[in-house]
């Protein structure tokens, strides 16, 4: 039985597949060049990234304590959420206290809030969340879901975006990207003026100082976190760095891996709410630290997936992702990252099949800035899934094992190879549907060996 990703491959519109392939493949090439240029050695930067995030995971309890203490000293209000439900309740509680129902809430791009489906909860409570990252904004007005953790509309092209903007009466039809950006900008500016609350994610939390670091290229995160009276940041509990000095590597490592930049256009270092005498910034900053399955992963065989800094490089380089984009994975986190994180967060029983949607080519591990061994994790997930009967290829491996451990059976099997075309098997159709069957070519090695070498 093939996976949901393979089934999706039969339904994906051609234009979507082309959009994803066209946008994802060059990102990988440029990324390698960018990291080599910035660091002299991409490999050394990856080693540092892996070691630092590994240290964070090994000392997560104490670093989180230190981080919370520093945040509180800075005047940031810290909340802990065990799961999505609790996170949504906490955020709704803050919103209700800060602004009347019906208020606009501006949102900066955040995968953590996608993960807990925050917008649905805000809307159900009468608030009007507005995504202000251009890609997320398009996703929102289209009633779509992001297909990439960094570039949410990698599956769309500018013509489709213009169609959406015309439909929403944001401006006339155009295929000029700058004009499209201007149309969205005009609409979103108004929302920034209206909104009393801004919600963001967190790229890095610095344990040493209690600062929240956000990076972006559009400026919408700055407006979401400074023009509003209340800023709520939502952070997965693994997103810490020990010290400020680590940013010297991690800012270019993340920007280089994600978008081939040395540093993003904007970097925000948020250390407190507005202080007396200051003219701008929110009066209150809340930080919601989200577990939602992470501590369960931390104590299991897939711990290293929590090193992830959400750069999206593994998606861009994955041959499967390049064909189908993120929708096929049916989870907020897609691609090689999602194939490990989704079953990790929600159980092998629910998302174990994603581990099969991989040719195990190893490109993801090669590009990962924090060296997550994704291919061996996919193999371990297959082992677990097979034992729990979540995945089954329908191939009788016990028969294979019998033949492969008995040389006599193996050799007599080989004599049948020329007749393989006569054997009916459901999986054979999966081969012959698109490929010709292989034939024995030339002399068999064993025959040659016994004639010439024995």
């Amino acid at each position, binding site marked *: 039985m093939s996976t949901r990703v393979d089934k999706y491959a039969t339904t994906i519109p051609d234009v979507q597949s082309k959009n994803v392939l066209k946008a994802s493949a060059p990102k990988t090439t440029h990324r390698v060049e960018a990291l080599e240029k910035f660091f002299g050695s991409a490999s050394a930067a990856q080693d540092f990234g892996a070691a630092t995030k590994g240290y964070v995971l090994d000392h997560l309890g104490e670093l989180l304590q230190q981080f919370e203490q520093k945040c509180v000293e800075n005047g940031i209000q810290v909340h802990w959420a065990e799961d999505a439900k609790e996170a949504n309740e906490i955020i709704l509680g803050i919103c209700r206290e800060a602004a009347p129902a019906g208020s606009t809430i501006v949102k900066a791009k955040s995968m953590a809030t996608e993960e807990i489906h925050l917008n649905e909860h805000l809307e159900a409570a009468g608030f009007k969340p507005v995504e202000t990252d251009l890609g997320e904004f398009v996703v929102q007005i289209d009633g779509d879901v992001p297909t990439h953790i960094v570039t949410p509309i990698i599956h769309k092209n500018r013509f489709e975006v213009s169609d959406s903007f015309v439909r929403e009466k944001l401006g006339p039809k155009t295929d000029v990207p700058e004009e499209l950006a201007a149309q969205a900008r005009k609409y979103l500016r108004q929302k920034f003026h209206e909104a009393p609350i801004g919600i963001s994610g967190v790229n890095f939390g610095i344990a040493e100082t209690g600062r929240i670091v956000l990076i972006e290229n559009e400026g919408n995160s700055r407006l979401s976190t400074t023009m509003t009276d209340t800023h709520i940041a939502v952070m997965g509990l693994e997103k810490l760095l020990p010290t400020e000095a680590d940013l010297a590597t991690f800012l270019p490592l993340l920007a280089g891996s994600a978008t081939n930049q040395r540093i993003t256009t904007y970097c925000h270092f948020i250390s407190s709410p507005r202080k007396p005498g200051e003219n701008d910034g929110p009066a209150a900053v809340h930080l919601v630290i989200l577990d939602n399955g992470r501590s369960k992963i931390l104590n299991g065989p897939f711990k290293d997936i929590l090193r992830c800094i959400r750069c999206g490089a593994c998606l861009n380089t994955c041959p499967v992702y390049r064909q189908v984009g993120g929708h096929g994975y049916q989870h907020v986190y897609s691609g090689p990252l999602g194939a490990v994180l989704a079953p990790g967060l929600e159980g092998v029983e629910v998302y174990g099949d994603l*581990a099969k949607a991989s*040719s*195990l080519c190893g490109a993801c591990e090669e590009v990962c800035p924090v060296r997550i061994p994704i291919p061996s994790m996919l193999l371990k997930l297959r082992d677990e899934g097979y034992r729990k009967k979540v*995945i089954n290829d329908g191939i009788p491996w*016990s028969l294979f094992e019998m033949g492969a451990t008995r040389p006599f059976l193996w050799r007599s099997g080989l004599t049948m190879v020329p007749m393989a075309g006569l054997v009916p098997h459901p999986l*054979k159709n999966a081969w012959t549907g*698109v490929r010709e069957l292989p034939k024995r070519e*030339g002399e068999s090695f*064993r*025959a040659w060996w016994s004639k010439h070498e024995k």
Partner: protein
Amino acid sequence: MLTCLCDAFYGNVGISTTKILKHLGYHVHFDDRQTCCGQPPFNAGDWGHAREVARYCQSVMFPDDRLVVTPSASCAAMVREGYHLLFPDEKPPMCYELSEFLTSVVGLSEWSGTKTYKRRIAFHRACHGRAIGVSAQAEMLLASVDGVELLPIENGDQCCGFGGAFCVVEPHLSERIGHEKVRTLLANEPDEIVSGDMGCLMHLGGLMRKDGTRIPVRHYAEILAEVI
């Protein structure tokens, strides 16, 4: 180590590997009890049966510290990396991929063949080399053969979509990835397509023949042996 695909279909790859090693002065030994490294059930998630096959392979192929060479990065990676996952408390055996052996152990940087092989070649780098540090070694040796022209490939490091059982268990993904690879390999009109893994070539060759493209697919070992 012959590999099961060369055992079943592509005998000449094993014959060529033997000729190459003998040409370099090595004594080649073939144990006819050998079968498979265990990768198919391992990749499928059936680690119980994979362990049985791996144990058998270990007993036949790796009873002592003899040098084991195989014309497949995939099988070499299975022995070196896969066995480590199957038996985490044991040091996995060493198994060299052929081009890795020729460059790292023998120390070659060019091939000592004397004949000319005048072909425009699109070379597909098999992905499992990534796991064991095998990348451009075979291309380096091929490029030194008189007459060989290696063509540039767009997104050349991308997988061909074979992936073992992946190609039948996830047939639509495999087909899409394979067609994209065929498109990029054929873009510069090569005379033949060459790789270091018969799995990739069986899949790519099958796809192309179904589409009516009759272009030869070959293992680089066959070329190196032919020009001796």
